[in-house]
Structure formats: C-alpha cells, structure tokens
C-alpha cells in the first residue's frame, strides 16, 4: 500500500538515555527539535491534538510492523494550546513532520506557505481515492485549487433529541424544516418549570454558523474580502437563532453555566441538543441503561426541508520543511485505510471521512450514527480564509449581545459586517498588493 514510500534501511537508533541527554543539553524546550537533533533518519514526529493522541498509539504498532524502517514519535498537544504551539513552531522553524490540523486552521498554514501540496501523491496513491471522500470535507483541504491535506475524521453538528419526549408531545418524527422545528420547540418548552426545548450554549459559534451555512448566500463576499452578514439569508438565520432565546425555548447560558448537559438532557431539561459526533459516546456512557432507547440523532432541519451543516473535522498534513515526506505520506496512507478508520472509530468515536469506511464495522448498522452519515452528504465548508475563526468568534459575541436584547437583528448583522471587514482589512491589502506585482 505504501507506493509513495521508498524502502527504508533500519537505521542506528540512539539509546533512550542518550536521546534524553541530547534533549536536555540542547535545552530543546520545543520538543519538535528533539526528533531532528537525533541521528535517527526515519523517525517521524507526529503531532496530535486532544484525545486523538491516545487512540493513535494503539494503531501505530501495526504501521511500524509493516514499515520496519519508520518509527513514529507521537506528541500530544492539548486542544487549548495547539494553535499557538503550531504557530510558534512555525515561527521558530521547529515544525514536526506531519500533524493533525483542524480544517478551519488549514487556510492559515497555507497562507504561511508551511504545508506540502499533496495532489501529486494522491494521484499516485492506490489508497487515498478522492471520490470516496465526502465532497465538501475533501473541499476544505483544497485552497486556491491546490490540495494540502487528507481528511482524517469529520465533525459536523446536528440534532440529538429525546424520542420519548417528542412522542409524548405528539410528534412521531424529528423536524425536517425550521417551521416544524419551531412548533416542536414551542410544545416542549416550559420555562416556568425550567424546561427548555433546546440547549444552545451562547459561547459556541458552531450552532449559529451551522444555521447560517444553510443559506444560499455565502458568509463572505467579493472573493472573501468582505463580510456578507447583512445578506437576507444570514439575517434570517440570526433571527431564527435569536428568536429561540427570546421565546425562551433555549436558556441564554454559556457552556460553563450549563455544567453537565448530558445529565440534564437525560432528566428532560432539554429535548434537543445541537452538538457533534463525540456526544454519541458521551450519551452512551453517561445516560442510564434504561434511557438508552429514549434518544436519537437527526439531520439538521433547514429553512425549507433538510438543511446543511458545517464541514468540520481534522486533516493530516505534511510540513514543507519535513525531511521525511515519503515516510509521512506512508503514515497518512495507512491511517486512510477504511479498516484502520473503522478501528479508529471503535477506539474513539471519531467519524471517518470516507464512504467505504462507513460500509463496514460498527458504523454500518449504528442507528445513532446514521443521521451523521446522511448529514455528511449535506455539509458546507466555511470560508477558506485564515481569519475565519476570528470572524466566527466576533459573530458569536455580537449574537450574544442580540440575545441579551442590546441589539436588533439588523444592528447585529451590521455590527458583525463591520467587525469582519476590519479583520479582513489586511487580507484585502495583501490580495491587492499581490495583484499589482508583475
């Protein structure tokens, strides 16, 4: 399977204590430096973010058996520090060989010209077949027509709901469009008893962003030079979102105040919860066995029928200055095999980006994963600009003000546009500047 990788001669390995001493001597606080200081030619440094680091160590022994010349050093970054650590590593010239990279961060590292284009390797590969991947997920790795990453797992937001509560309220099936959704939320909300239709933590931008992505208008306009938040579509999404709070169908609380949403969902405080795939595992773990039949998942309702959601997730990327690109690609190919992706799902619940990975293993007949399978055919990428996460953060801060009643929908939309335009000022300058060059 590793056509991209050349055969490797097992190199001389530095004994662990020598390696440690070398690290201490060079004072290499940036651990990435250690891998390069060692004489070991075929040691791959692989950075993972969050929980993936623990699961990957269970998958690597098979890879190392198949490639005796390659040793993989996994370094786990906590999610909260990963972004700054990656940027600092780039600034300090100590990037790893390959890393897991959230696909909203990809444009940033492409803007830095830090990543290796992968199209040629994909063309030669028998394992990575683009048409097998969910199209929008694949598209998040293509910036300005060039491919920089291979999707590793996907993440999208949809509805978790209490089947028993919906049935009691007279609804046989989950909502397909916003009107039906609004009717159900109204029937299931009893704010005087502190019972709400849905939990939408006001400090997370993903919920509003998912609703906004369902609209026809793009979120940025003119080649992603300006915000497009005053469009009719975004204002409609914002109005629906804010109305949910104003009608007291969702409590205006942050994640920290929500505390333990799983138990509260089990107690019936919320009938819906707009969240991501990792919560399948959380609900299975945290709800009592007697309640396991009372919840399910459903694709996100759209304004007029089933709607889109965000194309999130993480990709695997190779850094441009890695001296082990062939070995890194061999690892990417290994992690892209459907059988390996199924094991990865079993270990962690991270959903695979390939259709064929969904055709076997635990995923095929999983009733709660089925909605994700359906949703993944209907996801939309976020605007591929380095500034996107900042813009989304500002969007949510302004939306929270609208929820608090400090701004009307139109004022909030104008304010988000104003902030987005200010954030994008440098991008406009760089684009115009580059355009004027010969």
């Amino acid at each position, binding site marked *: 399977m590793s056509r991209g990788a050349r055969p490797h001669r097992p190199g001389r390995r530095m004994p662990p204590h020598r390696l440690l001493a070398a690290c201490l001597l060079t004072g290499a606080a940036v651990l990435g430096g250690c891998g390069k200081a060692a004489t070991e030619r075929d040691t791959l440094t692989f950075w993972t973010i969050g929980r993936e680091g623990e699961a990957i160590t269970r998958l690597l022994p098979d890879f190392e058996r198949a490639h005796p010349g390659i040793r993989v050093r996994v370094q786990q970054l906590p999610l*909260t520090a990963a*972004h*700054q650590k990656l*940027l*600092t590593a*780039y*600034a300090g010239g100590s990037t790893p060989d390959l890393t897991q990279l959230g696909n909203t961060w990809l444009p*940033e590292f492409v*803007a*830095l*010209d830090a990543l290796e284009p992968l199209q040629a390797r994909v063309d030669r590969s028998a394992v990575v077949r683009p048409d097998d991947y969910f199209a929008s997920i694949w598209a998040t790795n293509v910036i300005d027509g060039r491919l920089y990453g291979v999707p590793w797992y996907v993440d999208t937001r949809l509805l978790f709901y209490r089947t028993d509560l919906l049935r009691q309220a007279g609804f046989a099936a989950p909502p397909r469009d916003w009107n039906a959704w609004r009717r159900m939320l109204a029937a299931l909300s009893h704010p005087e008893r502190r019972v709400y239709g849905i939990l939408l933590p006001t*400090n997370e931008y993903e919920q509003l962003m998912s609703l906004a992505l369902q609209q026809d208008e793009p979120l940025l306009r003119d080649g992603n030079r300006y915000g497009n938040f005053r469009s009719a579509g975004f204002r409609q999404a914002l109005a629906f979102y804010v109305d949910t709070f104003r009608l007291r169908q969702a409590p205006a609380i*942050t994640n*920290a*105040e929500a*505390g*333990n949403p799983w138990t509260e969902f089990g107690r019936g405080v919320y009938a819906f919860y707009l969240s991501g795939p990792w919560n399948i595992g959380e609900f299975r773990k945290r709800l009592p066995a007697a309640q396991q039949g009372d919840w399910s998942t459903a694709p996100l309702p759209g304004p007029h029928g089933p709607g889109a959601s965000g194309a999130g997730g993480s990709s695997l990327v190779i850094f441009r200055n890695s001296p082990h690109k062939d070995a890194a690609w061999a690892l990417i190919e290994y992690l892209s095999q459907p059988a390996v992706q199924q094991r990865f799902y079993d270990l962690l619940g991270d959903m695979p980006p390939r259709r064929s990975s969904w055709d076997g293993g635990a995923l095929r007949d999983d009733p709660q994963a089925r909605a994700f399978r359906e949703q993944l055919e209907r996801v939309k990428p976020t605007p591929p600009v*380095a500034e996107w996460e*900042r813009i989304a953060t500002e969007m949510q801060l302004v939306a*929270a003000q609208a929820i608090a009643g400090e701004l009307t929908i139109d004022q909030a939309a104008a304010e988000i546009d104003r902030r987005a335009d200010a954030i994008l000022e*440098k*991008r406009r*300058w*760089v684009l115009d*500047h580059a355009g004027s060059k010969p």
Partner: protein
Amino acid sequence: MNPRHAAWLFLAPALLVLGVFFLLPVIAALALSLTDYDLYALADVRNLRFVALGNYWALLQRPLFWSALGHTVYFVAVGVPLSMAASLGAALLLNSPLARCKPFFRTALFAPVVTTVVAVAVIWRYLFNTKYGMANYALGLLGVHPVDWLGDPHWAMPTIIAFAVWKNFGYNMVIFLAGLQAIPADLYEAARIDGASAWRQFRHITLPMLGPTLLMVGILTVSGYFQLFAEPYVMTEGGPLQSTTSVLYLMYEEGFKWWNLGSASAVAFLLFAIMFAVTALMLRLARRGAHADGEAA
C-alpha cells in the same frame, strides 16, 4: 587608564547582559508595536506595514481593551489591600509572643507561594465546583443557595481574587515578619508603661515603623497584580462572558492566539505606561505623607 574608564570596563559585562536581554527586546517590541506584524508578515516580511500609532489608537477604541482594563483595576483595587492585610495579619500572628510552633506555621503559610499555579488551580476548581465543591457544601450547611463561583460573571473575579490572595500572601508575610522583628522591643515596653492599648501600640508604633516596608511591598504587589494572567488562564480562560479577561490575557490572545504581534506589543506598552503612572503616583503620595508626618512631629 583613568578611573572613569576603569569603572565603565567593570560595568561592561553587566551592561552587555542588560542590553542584550532587556534593552534590545524592549526596543524591538516598541518597534513592533508601530507595525501591523501579523500572520501575513510572518509568512512574508514584505507584508509588514508601518502604522505609527495606529495600534494604540485602535486599542483605545476597542471596548474589550477597556473592559479588560476595568477587570484588571478591579483585581488590583480589591486584591492588593486584601493581600496586604492577609500578609500583615499573618505576620502579626506569627510575631506574637503567644504563638506556638512558629516554624511550622511559617512554613505552612508560605507553602502556597512555592506551589505551582496550575496544580493548585485544579484543586481550587474542585473546591469551587458548583455541584460538588466544598465551598458550596459549606454554604449549604449554613442554608445559603449554591453559588456558581467560576461560571457566573459576577462571581468569577471574586473567586480569582481569593485564589490569588491565598497563593501570594505568604511571600509578603515573610517580608513583613522581617520588618516586625526589626522594630526595637523597648518602644513597645515604653508604650506599655504609658498604658497604651494593643490597638494604639499597633497604630502608633508598628505601622509607622513598618512604613517603608509597607510602601515597598505595596509597590511590588501592585505591579505584580497588574500583570494578572496565570490565574484566569488556568481557572476560567478569560470567561465567563470575558469577565476575567485581564489586560495581559488580552495581550496573550492578541499575540499568541491570533498572532497579531504588533497589536499585542501595543497592549504591553500601554500596560507598562499605566503601571508606571500608578507606581509613580504611589511613590509621590508616600513622599508627601512622609513630609506631612515630619512636619507634624
């Protein structure tokens, strides 16, 4: 070689170290704060623009900067007096002739200073957990409703202040203890013979004799507390609703989260200017106070 040259020669190693590791970075940061150094400039230095005081002007117009400054001032205004009172109180207790097991208590009260913020923050997060925390359990025994210590925007900063005071008071306590031990015992003896109460002894002997120590500790604590960062970073990440975002936390977010190093440097220099003004004011007030005392005496 004349003595002047010799003096410079002897100073040279120290000046060199100061110049390379302090002066140069400060000048570089000042230069950085006049540019829009960001992600694009990191990729290609031709994308760097000189913006003069643009970063400073933009900051002064940002509501988040003012709210961060407000939180920092709140933290300093409440935290510094509390911290100094706790330090002085503990030092007085330790210095009392009635105290037993002094070495043990001195070590125990100093212990928080030498612990790691991150490790202790984990324990404090448990203590102040809304549902399972000891703080709310104790309040429950008194019949008080549970408080969402770290999740409620009104309570997060007081919790951070309590944490910072507990973490830091031991350091000043040791300095105060040294100051107290330097006060001649015969002053107290004379006061006792004159029939002065314990409070009057404290008011008219301990406080004046500790004056210079108080001023120094005050200035050090104020400048330390203005640089509030680690506590919100590990306890609340600046939340909830940005209610614990301090000026330094804002700088960290600007600089390392969004990589706007130009704007982050401007934050650093604005904070420096504010701290400089506040400590200068404190010194001036202290000098005037000393003069007034001198005239009255």
